[in-house]
Structure formats: C-alpha cells, structure tokens
C-alpha cells in the first residue's frame, strides 16, 4: 500500500463501464444537439414552436442529469466513475482517440449546473427574446451551446474536451454576434473567437505534448501515468493548459474579449459569460489535477494569473457605468478566485469547483436581473440612467439583492461559504496571495454596492419616455429560482460534503494551517470586516451623493485606467494589431513585388529578350542568307579543324 501511495499521489481515473441508467448518458448531449439541429436546419417552419422545443430539450437534459446524479449517489464511492464508450473517433499509428464519455463526481456537478441553470435561462429567454424575430435561431444556438458544454465536461479524452471547448466557443461566437447587424456585436464576436483561439494554441499543443509524453490523451491513461512523467513535461503541459484556460476563462493576459462579449443578449451573458463557459478553464485545470498536482511551477503560474485577474477584474468593475460590463468585470474577478483556488492544488480544487457552482448561481441570477432591468428600461445599459428601480421592479430587486449578498460573501448566502474558503486556503498557502484575495473581496463589495445603489436606490435619472415595469413571470420565475439557489447554495458544503464528494477526483487535501495560527472563525470575521469596509466606502462615495447622468470627465488616473479596462485593448492594439496590420500590408507588397515579381520578372526578362532577338528577323532574305552562309562557313571550318586540326 505504501508503494501505491508513492506511485499514485494523484487520483487515477479508473472507471467502470456504463450500465442501467448510465446508458442514458449520451442522451444528455444528444437531446440539446438534436434540438439545435432541428431548429437551425428546420428554417422558418419551426418559428412557431422553436423556443418551446429548445427549452424542452434543455429541461429534458436536466431531468436525465438529475436521474443520473441520484443514481450516482446511490452507488459505492469506488464505482462512481462511469465511462460510456460510444465509438472510436480516430486512430493514427499508435494514437487512438475514442468518443468516450466520463461521468464522475466532477462531471456530475457540472451536468447539473449546466443543464439546470441552462434550463432556467432557456425559460427566461422565452420572455426576454419574445419580440425578436429570430428567437427560434437564438434557441438553436443556446441548445448548441448546452450540447457543446456537456461534451466538454463529459469527454473522457483531451481531444473530446477540445471538441466541446471549440463548440462552446462557436456558440459563444454566434450568440455574442446574435445581433450581428450591429457592427460592434460582430466585432466583439470575432474578437472573442480569435482570442479564444490563442488559448486553443495552448490546448492543442498541450494535447500534443500529452500524447508525446504518455502515448495517449485519455484521462484514464494520463492520470495513471502522470507520476512517471518528467517534471519538464508536466510543467510544459501545465503551462499550455493554463494558456488554454486563460483564453476560455478570460484570465490575464487574454481577458479583453469578455467585456466586449456583453454585446450579446443578456441571457447569453448570464449562461455563457458568467455561469458556464467561462468557467471551463477552471474545469480544465481541476480535471487535469493529475498534472497540476505534480508540478509546483505550473501551479505557481496558475496562482499568479488568478491573483492578477481577480484584482484586475475587480478594479475594472469599479469604474464601469454599463451594468453588464460591471458584472463582466466581476465575473473576471470571481473566475480569478476560482483559478487561484485551482492553483492551490488538492487543497483548493474542491473550493474552486464549489465557488464555480455558487458563482454560477448568483452571477446568472444577477445577469438575468440586469436583463430584467434592461427589459424594463428599453435596453438601456447605462446605470447612470437608472436609480430608484426598487419600487418599479420589486421581484427583480429582491432577487438581485440575494445575488448581491451572495457575491459579497455575507453569511449564510452561498458566496460566503465558497469565497471564504478560497481566501482562507490562499492565506494558508502564501500570505501575499491571501492578502490580494482579501483586498479583492473588499473591492468586490465596493463595486457591487455601487451597482446596487446606482440601479435600485437613489433618485430617478430615467430617460424621458422610459416606463420601468416588472418583467413577465416567465422571466421572474427563473430569477426566483436562481435567487433561491444563491441563498441556499452554501448547503452543499454542509459537513464538508462537496469536498468529500469530489475527493476521489481531485485528490486528498492535506489539512492546512492558517498563518499566525488563526482560527477559521477569526479569518471569516476579518473577511467580513473588509467587505463591510468596501460597502461603507461605496455608501459614502455613491450612496450619499447625487449620481451625475453623464460620467464625470475629471477623474483620477486610476478611474481612467479602469474605464479603459486597464489598457488591455490598448496594449493589444499597439503591440499586436497595429504592427500586425502593418506587417500584413508589407507582406502583401512583398508577395506582389518580390515573390510574384521574381516569377513575373523572369517572364518579362524572357519577353524583352525575345523582343530584341526577334529584331534579327528583319525580313531581308539577304540577311538570312548571310547568316546561312556564315553558318555554313562555320560548319566547314569545324569539319576542317576536326579533320586536320
């Protein structure tokens, strides 16, 4: 047994084949995929009932997920990793990739999150997109997204993950650019896809490196063999996967697309750019725990990236007047927390996933709330035009407030349980990182309070012809459901359940010591104090003053930087896009002048040469005869030279 511990200090994906209810696993993906196919290929014929079909597919998928989950609960802990072999995808030499689905504790929670929140958002969208003539198509894309996301979390092979990874990227592209007649939306969609592709470099090369190192890319083989691999290979794989995660989860330095992605319809922002897709990076890191647990260097990189992003996101969130962008900044920041947690190794994996879940609940809740507000405000997103909506939209306000309390980490709301743990674990790992996480929590409190105050309290600053009203029930019910989850999500950690549940996947967490020997309750109190300070500052700066309808111009350099997304786009523009564009222009000229010029130049040279030579053909018979005679003379001379020379 000791030997086995030494060899396998990471959990191995050792799965059992499917049986019974688990043979329905493929259906989880197939239902939304079928929905997408019908809606997108069916054309206008499906306009009338398309949204219902789409929602039904998502709900059906959710129901199956629930059944599967409870079946899994009923199994022994050792049998909770189930693999469904569908077919052999491709084989080349010794490299064989199967279309396998892996259903274990980790994918089980993701399944519930994706199909659950997904279903709610489908329902919500029925109302939100009611007046859009392309609603059917919207539901087609949403179904496509759900299917892809499920492939991502169910795949038992890195290539399978790649399939889902790009599938969600495509769905995200289509949905961000849903209102594509708006140039800004089309540009944002393209930007998101391209930056994600930069991350994909990491995933493809990472997968390639995994194959080279282990001779396979299935989780089962890699997890079993990872402890035998060299440090260099593991670190390389870890860093490449981190690059992939950065792209998908909008982590520094590939964060700039997320704020632009808010061009998409709000349910999209809620589902894709808050609750599920953007957390795929976290999933990837946690899923690859058998790599990351073994490489200290890569984990350090993960922690650094996570910490930088959580602060960046929080700072950007402070300065945004666009309600969705403020929330997007917040999303970045919260994912930063998750990445940070994931970088902490076995101690943090479970908390990363836990925070991912709770964040999925409360952020989806708040995004949908924001959507509800926009719905009532004629799609105006500028918070400076809001104010005092508390009365006009009581349900939206109440649900939003639940989300607010959750993200702040006020007990007993969900965020408290997950975020506290991350900050605690961070402190246990490194005091500096812990401090950053703590400051992040304070800043979070500030910008969220600012958002709440500007939107729901204070004076009316509405545009003239705006008549705020509560949204229809089809929209508020999902809000209520999500609010309930935001409030009660903490239950999952009751008795450390989530940690124990995930332990077979993520590995055993060593008990950690807080610095200065603090008790966890002291830590929690400190965090609450910092949060309270953030709220207080916001109350002072925003709540006690009149909010101007136009954003003030004379602001500090920090505000200006935050408004410009900390110059992420400016940096890309100056360092990548402009030189790139100039380079391409230069290359175009090079291609025409040098490469093609060389080819055409040869042709031209021959042409001009022949233009000269043909002048010899002057039409005078006597000249030809002269040449003939000269030739004859030469021949005779040569003959003589040969014979007598």
């Amino acid at each position, binding site marked *: 047994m000791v030997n086995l511990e030494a060899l396998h200090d990471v959990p191995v994906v050792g799965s059992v084949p499917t049986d019974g209810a688990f043979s329905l696993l493929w259906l989880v993906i197939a239902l939304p995929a079928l929905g997408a196919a019908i809606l997108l290929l069916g054309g206008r014929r499906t306009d009338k009932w398309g949204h219902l079909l789409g929602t039904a597919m998502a709900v059906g998928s959710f129901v199956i997920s629930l059944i599967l989950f409870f079946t899994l609960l009923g199994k022994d802990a050792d049998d909770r990793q189930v693999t469904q072999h569908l077919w052999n995808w491709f084989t080349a030499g010794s490299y064989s990739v199967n279309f396998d689905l892996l259903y274990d504790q980790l994918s089980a929670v993701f399944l519930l999150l994706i199909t659950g929140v997904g279903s709610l958002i489908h329902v919500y969208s029925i109302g939100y997109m009611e007046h859009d003539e392309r609603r059917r198509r919207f539901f087609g894309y949403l179904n496509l997204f759900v299917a892809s996301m499920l492939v991502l979390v169910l795949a038992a092979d890195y290539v399978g993950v790649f399939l889902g990874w790009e599938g969600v990227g495509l769905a995200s592209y289509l949905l961000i650019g849903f209102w594509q007649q708006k140039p800004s939306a089309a540009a944002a969609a393209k930007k998101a896809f391209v930056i994600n592709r930069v991350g994909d470099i990491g995933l493809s090369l990472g997968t390639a490196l995994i194959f080279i190192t282990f001779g396979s890319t299935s989780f089962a083989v890699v997890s079993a063999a990872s402890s035998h691999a060299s440090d260099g290979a593991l670190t390389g794989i870890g860093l490449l996967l981190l690059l992939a995660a950065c792209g998908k989860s909008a982590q520094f330095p590939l964060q700039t697309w997320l704020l632009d992605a808010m061009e998409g319809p709000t349910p999209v922002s809620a589902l894709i750019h808050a609750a599920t897709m953007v957390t795929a990076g976290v999933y990837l890191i946690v899923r690859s725990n058998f790599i990351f647990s073994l490489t200290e260097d890569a984990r350090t990189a993960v922690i650094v990236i996570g910490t930088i992003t959580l602060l960046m996101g929080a700072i950007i969130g402070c300065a945004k007047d666009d309600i969705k962008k403020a929330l997007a900044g917040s999303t970045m920041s919260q994912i930063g927390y998750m990445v940070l947690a994931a970088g902490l190794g076995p101690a943090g994996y479970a908390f990363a996933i836990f925070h991912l879940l709770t964040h999925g609940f409360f952020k989806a809740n708040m995004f949908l709330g924001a959507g509800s507000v926009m719905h009532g405000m004629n799609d105006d997103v500028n918070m400076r035009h809001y104010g005092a909506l508390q009365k006009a939209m009581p349900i939206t306000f109440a649900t939003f407030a639940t989300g607010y309390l959750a993200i702040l980490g006020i007990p007993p709301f969900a965020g408290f349980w997950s975020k506290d743990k991350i900050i605690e674990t961070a402190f246990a790992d490194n005091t500096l990182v812990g401090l950053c996480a703590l400051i992040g929590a304070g800043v979070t409190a500030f910008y969220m309070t600012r958002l709440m105050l500007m939107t729901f309290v204070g004076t009316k600053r509405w545009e003239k012809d705006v008549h705020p009203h509560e949204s229809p029930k089809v929209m508020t019910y999902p809000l209520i459901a999500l609010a309930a989850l935001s409030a009660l999500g903490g239950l999952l950690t009751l008795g450390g359940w989530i940690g124990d549940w995930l332990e077979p996947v993520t590995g055993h967490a060593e008990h950690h010591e807080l610095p200065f020997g603090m008790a966890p309750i002291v830590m929690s109190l400190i965090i609450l104090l910092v949060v309270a300070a953030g709220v207080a500052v916001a109350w002072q700066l925003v709540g006690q003053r009149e909010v101007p309808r136009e954003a003030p111009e004379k602001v500090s350099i920090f505000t200006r930087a935050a408004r410009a997304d900390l110059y992420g786009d400016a940096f890309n523009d100056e360092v990548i896009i402009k030189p790139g564009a100039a380079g391409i222009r230069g290359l175009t000229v090079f291609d025409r002048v040098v490469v093609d010029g060389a080819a055409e130049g040869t042709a031209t040279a021959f042409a001009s040469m022949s233009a000269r030579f*043909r002048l010899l*053909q*002057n*039409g*005078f*018979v*006597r000249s030809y*005869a*002269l040449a003939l*005679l000269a030739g004859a003379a030469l021949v005779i001379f040569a003959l003589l030279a040969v014979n007598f020379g």
Partner: protein
Amino acid sequence: MDTTPFIVLSAILFTIGGIGVLTRRNAIVVFMCVELMLNASNLALITFSRANGNLEGQIAAFFVMVVAAAEVVVGLAIIMTIFRTRRSASVDDASLLKY
C-alpha cells in the same frame, strides 16, 4: 589530269555565287547567282565522278539540273508575280515577313 584545279574552280565559283546572292538586290540577278552556285557544285560532282571512276556523280549532277530547272520555273514565276503586284524586282522590297 589532276582534279584539284577543278575543285578549286568549283569552290571559287560557288563563293562568287554566294557573295552575289548576298550583295545583289535584283531578284533576277540573285537567282542567276543561285544558278551559278548550282553549276559550281555540278562541276565538283562531275570532277569527283571522274576521280572515282563511276557515273554516280554525273547522275547526281543530272538530278541537280532537273531540280534547278524546276526551281527556276517556279522561282521566276514567283518573281513575276511579285513584280506584278509591287512593280519591283528588288528582294529588299519583299521584306514584309518579319518580326
């Protein structure tokens, strides 16, 4: 009777004919020079025939004459045709077939 003088004479006549073809512009004279060259070669053929002691050379000369006759007939006809259309017998005037 040595053969070399005949051959040398033949060579000289041939060269003169050649130079004539090159320098004269009147198509008729050029043609005459061509005939001169043919005759010069005939002389060589006949001389070789004698030197080798068989008549094949004479046969060859005979054929040269036949061909020359045919050539002159056609050639002069062509000159006539050209002259008729261009009012000129200069070979330089018939220089349209060029670059």
